[in-house]
């Protein structure tokens, strides 16, 4: 039940960034639903600066260097304006506009950035940057939604030969430019590390990643990573940073690798995030797992257990049909499950790696053939050896079963050979095809299907 001024005062007194940042949060806390309104109506446009100067400092008995004090007053003045635009959604909905909220909030973000860059705001206050950045992104998305629902904006007038492709995210793109300045503001701070804004680097980076993903411009993350790498020598080790920042950061790095099909690296970062993630952060754990499961399927050819997915019914629902088909070697079922889940998989950007699960399903199907082939007659009391020479025709028949093929459909032997050759090439099967004889010769001694016991 603390007012904005209380939060500011306490934050400044005990030097708590998060507490200070809560003063700038544009959402009223549950136990004080009128907090924003009462803040807005405490002053008016003419007196707001003077009133703020009094309420933030004199009334609180706070003293800061003059420049810093001035910067805070400016920041809170623009915060007051932004809150005014927000309050309008309650008081005069017909005049309320997310575009205006966004513009006001952006103005404030810029003042905050200037406060750091030239007006001596101290580094411990960077949590303010997180809050302002986070809501800048949110307001930008609401503004874009508002604009596109009004159907406005069509052409931008830069001197381009072709109209730019995407107008739907104009405000969010504007927001990325501000967020980018926050990123630079943190990264380029040369103060000694104890009082450096460098501690804010991962949070601002995460915010930018998140926005780039939203804008479908994941490629731009490369620039951030390059900048980070260039100054990595000056950055403390990752474990010195707040865990929450690092977990998110590792998650995004993992996903970026994942999207480039570097599944080995992706798995490394995602596993790190998975292990570090707070156990109660169910939503985040679910997000990590949504990528980690397909990743694991590609790198280790293993499927998630029921226990692993138990706390995440949505993931269970998403992956289980596929997993069952892969296990059974049911190619037809697998294809059907892929088609059924396609929209969701594509939306989550996991379609492409999951598709590779078909190889595993195929391997399992062919393995069954191998096992059903039984044993060659043993000689001289030696332990029986599995039949390792399997006609291609048997695999063709298996394929017929696996794909639920109609009996009139002709199975193309060349294609069967091609599938076999792929499994061999990828190391899922060991052996070779003797084409002239129409025979597959598999390796002896329990290594025909590596890692599966036969």
């Amino acid at each position, binding site marked *: 039940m603390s007012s904005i001024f209380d939060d500011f005062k306490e934050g400044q007194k005990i030097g708590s960034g998060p507490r200070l940042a809560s003063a700038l949060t544009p959402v009223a806390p549950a136990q004080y639903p009128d907090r924003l309104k009462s803040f807005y109506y405490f002053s008016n446009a003419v007196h707001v600066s003077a009133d703020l100067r009094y309420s933030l400092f004199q009334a609180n008995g706070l003293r800061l260097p003059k420049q810093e004090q001035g910067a805070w007053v400016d920041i809170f003045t623009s915060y007051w304006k932004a809150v005014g635009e927000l309050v309008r959604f309650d008081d005069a909905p017909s005049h309320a506009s997310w575009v205006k909220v966004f513009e006001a909030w952006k103005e404030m973000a810029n003042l905050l950035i200037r406060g750091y860059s030239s007006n001596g705001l101290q580094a411990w206050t960077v949590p303010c940057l997180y809050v302002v950045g986070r809501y800048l992104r949110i307001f930008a998305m609401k503004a874009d939604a508002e604009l596109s629902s009004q159907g406005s904006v069509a052409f931008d007038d830069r001197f381009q030969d072709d*109209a730019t492709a995407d107008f739907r995210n104009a405000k969010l793109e504007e927001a990325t430019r501000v967020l980018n300045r926050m990123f630079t503001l943190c990264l380029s701070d040369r103060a000694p590390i104890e009082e450096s804004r460098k501690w804010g680097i991962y949070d601002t980076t995460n915010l930018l990643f998140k926005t780039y993903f939203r804008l479908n411009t994941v490629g731009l993350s490369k620039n951030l990573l390059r900048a980070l790498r260039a100054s990595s020598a000056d950055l403390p080790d990752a474990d010195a940073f707040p865990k929450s920042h690092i977990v998110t950061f590792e998650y995004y790095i993992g996903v970026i690798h994942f999207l*480039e099909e570097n599944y080995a690296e992706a798995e490394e970062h995602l596993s790190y995030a998975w292990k570090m993630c707070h156990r109660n952060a169910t939503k985040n754990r679910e997000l990590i797992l949504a990528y980690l499961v397909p990743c694991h399927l590609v790198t280790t050819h293993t499927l998630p257990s029921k226990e692993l997915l138990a706390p995440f019914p949505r993931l269970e629902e998403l992956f289980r049909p596929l997993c069952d088909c892969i296990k059974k070697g049911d190619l037809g079922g697998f294809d059907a499950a892929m088609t059924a889940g396609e929209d969701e998989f594509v939306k989550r950007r996991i379609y492409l790696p999951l598709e590779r699960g078909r190889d595993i399903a195929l391997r399992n199907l062919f393995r069954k053939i191998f096992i059903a082939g039984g044993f060659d007659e043993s000689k001289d009391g030696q332990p029986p050896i599995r039949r390792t020479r399997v006609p291609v025709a048997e695999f063709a028949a298996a394929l017929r079963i696996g794909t639920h093929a109609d009996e009139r459909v002709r199975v193309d032997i060349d294609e069967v050979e091609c599938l076999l050759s792929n499994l061999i090439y990828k190391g899922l099967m060991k052996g070779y095809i003797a084409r002239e004889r129409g025979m597959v010769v598999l390796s002896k001694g329990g290594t025909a299907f590596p890692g599966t016991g036969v």
Partner: protein
Amino acid sequence: MSSGIPPWRVSASATATTSLHSGHVAPAYIPVQARRSLTPAKATNPVPSSSTSPTSTETAARKRVEFPDAVRTYVQRSFAPEHRIPGVERSEMEAKLKSVITEAAEGNMLNKIDWETLPLPQVMVQNDRNRVLASPSVSTWGAFGTVSPKKSNGLSEDPSKKRKSVEYHGDASSCPPWRQTNNQNAFEDRVTYPSTDKRQKIDMKNPSKSKANLEMRRKRFEEPQARSGSSPSSRGASPASSANQGPVVGRCQELEKNYFRLTSAPNPDTVRPLPVLMKTLDLLKKKWKKDNNYGYICDQFKSLRQDLTVQHIRNEFTVSVYEIHARIALEKGDLGEYNQCQTQLRALYAQQLGGHPTEFRAYRILYFIHTRNWTAMNDALADLTAADKRDPAVTHALDVRSALALGNYHRFFQLYLDTPNMGAYLMDMFVDRERLSALAAICKAYKPDVKIRFITEELGFESDEQSARFILDQTSEDLLQEKDGVVRLLTGGKAGQLFEGAKAEAHRIVDIKGQI
């Protein structure tokens, strides 16, 4: 304000003022006390303001000039106390006056200028200052006070010669830099005006860069005036303003036009309106069929697209222009240009403007297979609707993608031989790469050898000779052997490694730009 610097001054200023400073005139400038009338000034004032001045020794060397009465009245008016403008130093005014009259005299304009309506020098000084204030580039505002009375030695104050010092330091003090930036039309500083300016810019590079910059900047300041002023020439008429205010409406009737990248707002005189553009497209189609000259066609299409964009034309015609250009670029393997069209088409199709969306969605998938851009591929998949997926071309592209993802070369090359529309042009670009992948797999999986016929059939070659040549080109070793009258590929030994290496090499670089 409206007239600003008289047009004749613009070109004359540089030469006129330098000649003024060539020595003998200078000593005459001595600070003078305040004056109420013209008469006592005659002796000391060097400004050729009246008929008496030629008698003074300093000016004797110069060509004698008879000043018309109008000029004299003008000078008189300049000194009249009621015309004084607070803030404009007397010395500044005098300097201005001098330069105005000297230039007029040297340009033989004394009788041609309408002295009655010409702004007084102090007004000009003020205008000059206002222009500086409007300039976005002034930053050294702290150094004001250079125009101090101490420096009333009129020489150094000559605004056209010492433009920099006077204008820069002059009055910016009254307007801090952060305010100045926004005064100007945001475009002004990026705009270089077409036609004449271009040549001047180049010429000016020669003498000195800073001087050229100076000149450019000055031109910029004048532009807004020129526009609102008397000259309705194409130069000032619309360009800068239109960029802000909406689409251009073209007036050009020529069918063909070379492409130039826009560096300024477009000029309606060189932009073709929609009916003309439609004729242009017909002409281009005919020319393409007849001459097949890609360089020319590409250039023409680019200017066509540019004209559409600047006029904000987005309709079915726009779609067909991009589609045709995309197809031509595909045919010629100009992927850079193709990709530009494809990106636009994606946005255009999203607006349901007609055209052939499925055909191009299929190309888009094939294109991302070629560039191996998986992130974009995911987006391309996300764009597909259920109806799209039933389209034969899209189905084909999706099958190609999935065949490659699973390494099913058998299926891939079947699809390759049966590609709808112009997709084969795209597939040609990555088919060799995929042949190497397939050969690497074949070498690992088949032992001890395979017939060359098998390779030819599986990998979509046209003949055994072609596949044999391909193998020999990619691997220097002699992997082919004739046995029982059949050529065979020996898959053992180093073969696998060799193809593996060639495959890695082929996958390493994808030339995305690939522009011709």
